[in-house]
């Protein structure tokens, strides 16, 4: 359970150092929108290892962490670069065990979303109508079935997920450390409430929250730390603050395809890697382009306003 102490406004490095430990189960959530990239990079920068990473859509953020050797296990439901193609670091880890073997547990979106829901309610499992007849059911330790005591119908059961720590990015905090996010809010509320500890990076701190239809508000007493990190979702976006850097999502494909390009990118961004040689077996090095120093680049692809 989260500490009853009110959340403070903390430096991100301190929050990660205090709350994210080697071996933790860590969920970084944000469904396309509000992905906590800056916090992920801080986790990598501090050299965390042996994490179990949980996330519905691993996206570039976990492709990077997996390539950097941060994760031993991945729990997810859709691992692609949306609209672009594969997550090559994820594939390299699963297919070729580079930089090391990555254990995989996978759900459908509905299954993983409900696993968080059960976790947020501190129930051991959730029920849904799905999975029947699929090979996903073979993962018996996380997907099982229950029988309705009223109708006799057999339904799927998914094991609850309770991360040690959940990290999200949001638009706003107030001076007391309450947090507000809006737009596509995904599964963030449930992921935060399912966790023992929760860290939120925010665009800015305001005296009072605006009215926002569809906003999620998280009271300070369910949060462990709130950190002001403007543009902390880049190359994802924060509605009202930035647009998605679709160009970087395209460019990442070339960086991630090639181990050397990836290691160059990591080095240029001061992200520590395991001492693994890229030479032994590069996934699809043929059409890899040289790394660009993209992590620290400005979000230079703002689209014209279109309202």
């Amino acid at each position, binding site marked *: 359970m989260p500490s009853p102490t009110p959340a403070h406004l903390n430096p991100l490095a301190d929050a990660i150092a205090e709350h994210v430990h080697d071996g933790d189960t860590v969920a970084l959530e944000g469904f396309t929108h509000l992905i906590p990239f800056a916090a992920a990079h801080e986790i990598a920068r501090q050299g965390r290892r042996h994490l179990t990473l949980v996330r519905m859509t691993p996206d570039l953020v976990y492709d990077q962490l997996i390539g950097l050797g941060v994760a031993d296990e991945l729990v997810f439901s859709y691992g692609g670069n949306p609209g672009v193609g594969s997550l090559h670091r994820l594939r390299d880890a699963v297919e070729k065990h580079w930089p090391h073997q990555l254990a995989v547990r996978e759900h459908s979106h509905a299954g993983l979303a409900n696993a968080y829901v059960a976790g947020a309610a501190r129930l051991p499992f959730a029920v849904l109508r799905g999975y029947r007849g699929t090979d996903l059911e073979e993962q018996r330790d996380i997907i099982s079935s229950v029988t309705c005591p009223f109708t006799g119908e057999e339904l799927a059961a998914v094991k609850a997920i309770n991360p040690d720590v959940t990290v999200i990015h949001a638009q706003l905090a107030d001076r007391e450390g309450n947090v507000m996010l809006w737009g596509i809010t995904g599964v963030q509320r449930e992921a935060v409430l399912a966790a023992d500890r929760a860290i939120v990076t925010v665009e800015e701190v305001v005296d009072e929250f605006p009215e926002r239809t569809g906003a*999620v508000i998280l009271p300070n007493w369910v949060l462990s730390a709130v950190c002001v990190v403007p543009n902390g979702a880049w190359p994802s976006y924060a509605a009202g603050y930035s647009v998605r850097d679709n160009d970087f999502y395209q460019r990442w494909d070339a960086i991630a395809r090639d181990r050397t390009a990836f290691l160059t990118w990591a080095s240029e961004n001061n992200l520590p890697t395991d001492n693994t040689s890229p030479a032994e077996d590069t996934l699809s090095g043929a059409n890899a382009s040289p790394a660009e120093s993209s992590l620290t680049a400005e979000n230079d692809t703002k689209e014209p306003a279109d309202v």
Partner: protein
Amino acid sequence: MSEWDSADMMNVAAARELKNGDVCLVGVGPPNLAANLARRTHAPACRLVYESGAIDAKPRRLPLSIGDDDLAATATAVVSVPEMFNFWVGAGRIDVGFLGAAQIDRYGNINTTVIGDHKDPTIRLPGAGGAPEIASAAKRVIVIVKQSRRTFVEQVDFVTSVGYGPTGNERQAPGAGPTLVITDHGVLEPDPDTNELTLTRLHPGITVDQARQATGWDLKVADSIEDVPPPTATELTELHRLRDREPADG
């Protein structure tokens, strides 16, 4: 403007299946193109639902991801992902769900998870996403997939989303299952008795033999094959405008 290829034809044929008023769950790729094309042409009142939570999204340009801000900004309502899957998809409120496939078998069972063994795959594919629930709960499921022997296989390596089950008779889900498979060659529909996918329509210029060649099993062919009309000028114009991320024409 009148030039088009087999991929265009596939997207246009998929768009035509959407009726005005249909509630359509839209995924990335061809489904996104098809659904938005339908909304810009014959089905302006079809309702686009994105699994990111946007209900009745009215994107002004083709969204590049299912989480574009334009979807949230133009939606009637934006809900959480758990609510989307529990109260909207799972509850059977979706009329049409589009699915893609890395592999599909003759009974419409779909693999988007791995080529090879799940624990030690040759190729790790993206995984399930929202597909298993769409396959299970949507009233009509339309698969959009390019036809080849690599994709249309005797047996899928992994069942990510259930069609009609291993022998065509095992489906127990509430939705109807894959009602159409739209490819770059034509259209397949489940046989009313056996649920075996059967070639029922051909795109312009494609022969039955070509379709057979692109299928990894002995393809069942309907007694009479319909010819799919080629894309209209309007369809092509809007398709190109969508790809160029331009707003709707007029």
